[in-house]
């Protein structure tokens, strides 16, 4: 085995040799069975490293972490938290609220597609506990649609006051909400009296209204 070439085998595997060096090493490999065998073993090591799996700690470490967090949340920490809350971007806050909408909507989707549809007798509507019939009323839908249309018109007029990144985030989140609304409406066509779906649709539309209001408020503050 030639030590000079053996020490270059890892670089060869990683594609870090130039064409000339690679050609010389390959010529050597054609005549040196030991280097050839070593190369195969090194490749196995690389493959093995990529297949290593993660394992959790033997004991739960959260208790110690939580203790430290609580200690930091003592009064002096609270001041910092208030500042941090206001330092969050609009996008982060919107992402949090939209993701929760999606989680809720996804749950509904999976329940409906797994054949285990929740019924109005077994599923308790989330708060606010407004009677489901109210959500179904034509009056409510018309009012919501009108509010959304007005806010969207306002946002179209104000959008130029927002920076590009914010506009992109708002549009992406509106698209996510619209998909959630579409899924809820689709599911309701199959099960129009489902309490959960009616409440979910109402909450999602309220999220859309709230998002549009926030975006318009932000645009107004920028002008």
């Amino acid at each position, binding site marked *: 085995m030639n030590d000079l070439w053996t020490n270059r085998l890892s670089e060869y595997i990683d594609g870090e040799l130039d064409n000339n060096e690679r050609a010389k090493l390959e010529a050597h490999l054609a005549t040196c069975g030991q280097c050839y065998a070593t190369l195969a073993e090194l490749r196995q090591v690389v493959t*093995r490293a990529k297949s290593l799996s993660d394992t959790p700690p033997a004991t739960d470490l959260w208790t110690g972490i939580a203790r430290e967090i609580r200690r930091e949340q003592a009064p002096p920490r609270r001041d910092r938290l208030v500042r941090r809350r206001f330092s*969050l971007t609009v996008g982060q*806050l919107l992402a949090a609220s939209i993701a929760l909408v999606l*989680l809720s909507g996804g749950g509904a989707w999976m329940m409906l597609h797994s054949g285990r549809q929740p019924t109005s007798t077994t599923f308790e509507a989330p708060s606010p506990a407004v009677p489901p019939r109210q959500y179904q009323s034509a009056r409510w839908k018309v009012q919501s649609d009108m509010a959304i249309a007005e806010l969207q018109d306002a946002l179209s007029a104000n959008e130029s006051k927002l920076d590009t990144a914010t506009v992109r985030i708002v549009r992406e989140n509106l698209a996510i909400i619209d998909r959630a609304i579409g899924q809820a409406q689709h599911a309701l066509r199959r099960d129009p009296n489902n309490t959960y779906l009616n409440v979910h649709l109402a909450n999602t539309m309220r999220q859309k209204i709230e998002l549009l209001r926030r975006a318009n408020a932000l645009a107004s503050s920028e002008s």
Partner: protein
Amino acid sequence: MPRQVLEDTLTADSIAADSALAASGDATAFERLYRTHVARVHTLVRRMIDADEADDVTQDVFIRAWQKLSTFRGESAFGTWLHRLAVNVVLARRKTVGIERGRFINEEEPLDGLSSKRVTPELSMDFEEALASLPEGARQVFVLHDVEGYRHEEIARMLGVVPGTSKSQLHHARMALRRHLER
């Protein structure tokens, strides 16, 4: 939408939501992030340093993550950000405890603790155990490059060495570990 795709989307969305909530001071959301990521972080730490310190360092990583969440702007995935933070904590600890001396082996010397002869089946050790037996410098380069996918230039920058040293350490680590592949 296929169920798996939907579930993956919801998982990614819930992590993004939890990271935003945790940044606003929600410890419950942060605990959910901990539960999701602790195995990955603990495994990385355990491979990079001595196993008996892994619990303490892992706790330190999450405490620092809590303290630094306000700097996480969501440009990358939360897991990526946390992973990089864990690497930084491990490497900073290495400097703090003053164990730099001797961490990089002489290229001409055999690796401590690992036989240069092929092990017999009855003496063979688990690949993870063999990895843990490597000198710290070679082990960290191997973990960062072959397990975690960092490039030599990044590793050299993080460890304060030249890329050639990182390459040399990696080769020595691989040469030692090849004798401990499970057959």
